[in-house]
């Protein structure tokens, strides 16, 4: 089980979209992949083929003491999916208190899932700061910090770095973390210049596989399809495929952490 957490300090950068499309790209290749919605916004399902946000999910199962497997879905792209589910405000606070008290709670739940050893688990998190992010960082074999080439990129990086160092109690987390650029439009000069600066600043930590801004992405959501189905061979599809290959190679090389 190779666990990948998609995180960010800003909202709306595309974590959910990337999680869904990455899962589809990996699943279509016949590889076991689990998309885990670890955000009370409960949106991932809409990107994976559901018409409505599911009411039942891992949160209910956790509160009621049931097994997570019972809330799981499987879609036609061969993706296993665990929705978060709808929680009322009170239960959510209770749930988050539970998380705050036990840093390794998610780790244990994932362990109990007994997902195939060579499977990939993609965890779509709530933006920082949040107890969800903290939990996800504890278990992740690889952390993908999603960001857009926005002019505030320096602040985003600083904030992200601060979290990683705090939670990883040193630089241990930085070693398995990469920055992933999304919504890149290289026709814009500012974008190009920001990317140049980022390359110089982050060096190897900035993934070479960035995802371009492509109208095919929101179109695909509107059509309730993955980008791979809606606009095969388009730039976004190309980018997701590249990222998927890289991730699988990483999973192969590192294997599950002990």
């Amino acid at each position, binding site marked *: 089980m190779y666990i990948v957490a998609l995180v960010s300090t800003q909202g709306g950068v595309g974590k959910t979209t990337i999680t869904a499309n990455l899962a589809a790209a990996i699943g279509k290749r016949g590889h076991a992949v689990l998309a885990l919605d670890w955000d009370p916004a409960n949106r991932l399902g809409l990107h994976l083929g559901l018409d409505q946000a599911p009411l039942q999910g891992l949160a209910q199962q956790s509160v009621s003491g049931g097994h997570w497997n019972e809330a799981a879905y499987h879609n036609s792209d061969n993706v296993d999916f665990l929705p978060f589910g709808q929680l009322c405000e009170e239960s959510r606070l209770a749930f988050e208190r539970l998380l705050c008290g036990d840093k390794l709670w998610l780790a244990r739940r994932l362990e109990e899932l007994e997902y195939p050893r060579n499977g990939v688990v993609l965890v779509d998190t709530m933006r920082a700061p949040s107890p969800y992010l903290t939990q996800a960082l504890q278990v992740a074999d690889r952390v993908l910090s999603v960001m857009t080439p926005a002019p505030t990129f320096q602040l985003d990086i600083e904030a992200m770095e601060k979290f990683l160092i705090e939670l990883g109690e040193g630089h241990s987390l930085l070693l398995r973390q990469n920055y992933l650029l999304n919504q890149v439009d*290289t*026709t814009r000069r500012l974008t190009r210049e920001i990317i140049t600066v980022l390359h110089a600043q982050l060096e190897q930590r900035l993934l070479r596989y960035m995802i*371009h801004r*492509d109208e095919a992405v929101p179109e695909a959501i509107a059509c309730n399809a993955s980008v791979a189905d809606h606009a095969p*061979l388009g*730039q976004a599809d190309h980018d997701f495929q590249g990222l998927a290959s890289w991730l699988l190679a990483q999973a192969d090389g590192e294997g599950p952490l002990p």
Partner: protein
Amino acid sequence: MKPGGLIGFLAGRLGVADPARIGSWLLRVFVLPPRMKQAGRQGESLSGNVAINRMIAVWAGALGVNDMLDPGAWILRIFILPPAREAGLTGWLQAGFVRARRWVSERFSPRRYARLVSRLETAGIEWMDTGGVALRIFLGLLAGSFLLLVITTPLNGGEQARFFLVTWMLALLVRRLPGDLPGVILIMLSFLAALRYGWWRITSSIPQGFGMDWLFGMVLLAAEIYTWLILVLGYVQTIMPLRRQPAPLPTDPGDWPTVDVFIPTYNEPLKVVKTTVYGAQSIDWPKDKLNVYLLDDGRREAFRQFAEQAGVGYIIRKDNAHAKAGNLNHALRLTKGEYIAVFDCDHIPTRAFLQLSMGWFLRDPHCAMAQTPHHFYSADAFERNLSTLYRVPSENTLFYRLVQDGNDLWNAAFFCGSCAILKPTPLEEIGGIAVETVTEDAHTALKLHRRGYNSVYLNIPLAAGLATESLASHIGQWIRWARGMVQIFRIDNPLLGRGLSFFQRLCYCNAMLYFFHGIPRLIFLLAPLAYLGFELHIIHAEAKVLVFYVLPYLVHAIMANARIQGQYRHSFWAEVYESVLAWYIAIPTTLALFKPKLGKFNVTSKGGLTELSFFDWAISKPYLLLLGCNLLGFLLGIGRLLWWNTREINVVLLNLAWVLFNLTLLGAALGVATEARQVRLSHRVAMRLPVSLYLPDGRVWACWTLDYSSGGLSLDFPKAQVLEVGQKVAVSLSRGDQEFTFPGQIVLAQGKRIGLRFADLSPQEEAWLTQCTFARADAWCNWVENQPPGRELAGFWEIVDSARYGYGQLLRRFVHTLRAPRGHDG
């Protein structure tokens, strides 16, 4: 490389254990093959057994011998079936071998043989060591007298034929084996055959008396002696190309030297120069240590403005004295970089140029010049007019990929005027770039070598440019080189004067003598007429005997050359190139030989456009004249065969064959003179690069380029019918980690093939575009064609094909001209 270093290198290659002892050299050169070295671990040789087994294994692999211990497989592969590629082997053929193979393998074991060789080797070394000087002298004398014996023994026709059969079999045996040694063996065989032929030719085939026979005979002999000389010098030059690797630079770029890039220009269009300047600016080198200068001898305002806007230096002078050499010298006086890099204004450097080629200067303080190949991304006159692009290596390939690399072994690689780095301090010592001749480049290098400086040749294309676009300009360029090289030969002869090593003299000498090929080639093109037209016997020998002597010489020369240079020049093409030039360089070289001060510099025009296909009557006049002579000879020959010289049928047949060969060469020359239509102003470079295509509707597509030029791209688009002609798009290309986007318009949409023309690009965008395309570090690295060595006969059919095309064109144009005498097309 110092002589010590060279000897060390050779010793290493040959596996000479102790270079100080002549005995071990003799042993390696004459008696036993060199030991193979393990890659990476220098200096430590393997035991004889392992070395031999490994060599056998390498050979087996190359020949497609599956079972190394099976002698039958070896025989099969070497003599009967070519290696693996044509492995589809018919059953019946194999069946015959099975029994024979079994029989042989029961009796011979290569293992036993290997043990024997290794025992022999040890014994040999002991014997050599104990033998002392006397033994060495004895062996030397033995080899010498053996050679003399082989060369001078007179044999009659039949005997000579059988002798040839043996050497030919030997050549067939070794020619497909990998490694340097088989090449050396082929050269030795060719050398032997040439000497034998030469000896026979001089001692027993000179016409008697001092009549016309004798006179013309001596002319032919002189031409032949010239070809022997060039053949042998060529072997010396290319026997072991150095294949030098780039030397690493210091890790701290602070320690890298300052470099001035000079781009001399005279009358070329700004469009051509721009790309070169942008390429030069984007060379990966510390920005404060790289200065680009445009040296404009045309003194054009547009160029000054461009230089200012691009942020490069702009240098002009009052007059144009000494053309390019004067231009460079003038700039040298004004700048003070530690090194200068020179690019002709149409040679675009790649980003990696300096980082790959500077290293040797820092390693060797006596290094004064580093040269890299001139690579051309457009088709030259031959490739375009004969449509041989990518099929036949271009004319200059041999020189830049092999000859210069061979020169480098002897520290004799010379400056070629562009794509090179020079060190100004040694240049000052020799008075700057040489101005005495029209080939200032070679002369400058010669002067540097005389001063004891070293040169470096790096066989990696790190810059590329446009080839000469027409036959006329190709010839113009060659006339200049020929005249210049002969001028140097006259006023600063490499054989005379001080400061050069023996091999440097030979290499320079060959480079210059080569340009004298005009007259000898004309002699060969006309020689058969002496007999067919006038019944002169210019070779005093029986036709049959002549064939038995000349054939080994030709066959071995062709085989040896196919082996050592087949990848860079196909067999028989040298004859085509020479026939095209012969007439034109014969006069300038002769003039320059007697009056070296004569003549002026002429610039070859490039980047032009041949709008209409046309036959260049003006330039083909000499070919037509020679063609007429040979045709006449052919008709006379037929007449002699049937009516007049029926008692000398063999002689007539021989001369007819010669005439036919000449006609083939001339036909190919006529083919080159048919200028094919050239439609594009900007030449396209085939290369697959990933791009993103941004459409107006917000969709983005990932696709690959098929080719690029400074004006546009063609793309391999994943889906048909998405794009329409006229659509405005943006396309992004990457340079390293960076992406750049360029506005453009779709101009062609044929299924998945999309043509895109860039909109008006800003200067900044043009610079980026150059960096993403022509100046990419990897732009030309795939260009090093890993072609299999050219097969001898394939080369022949290529020129026959070209000749057929040439005659077809001639006939068409001729008919056309008859019909419409005032047509602009003819």
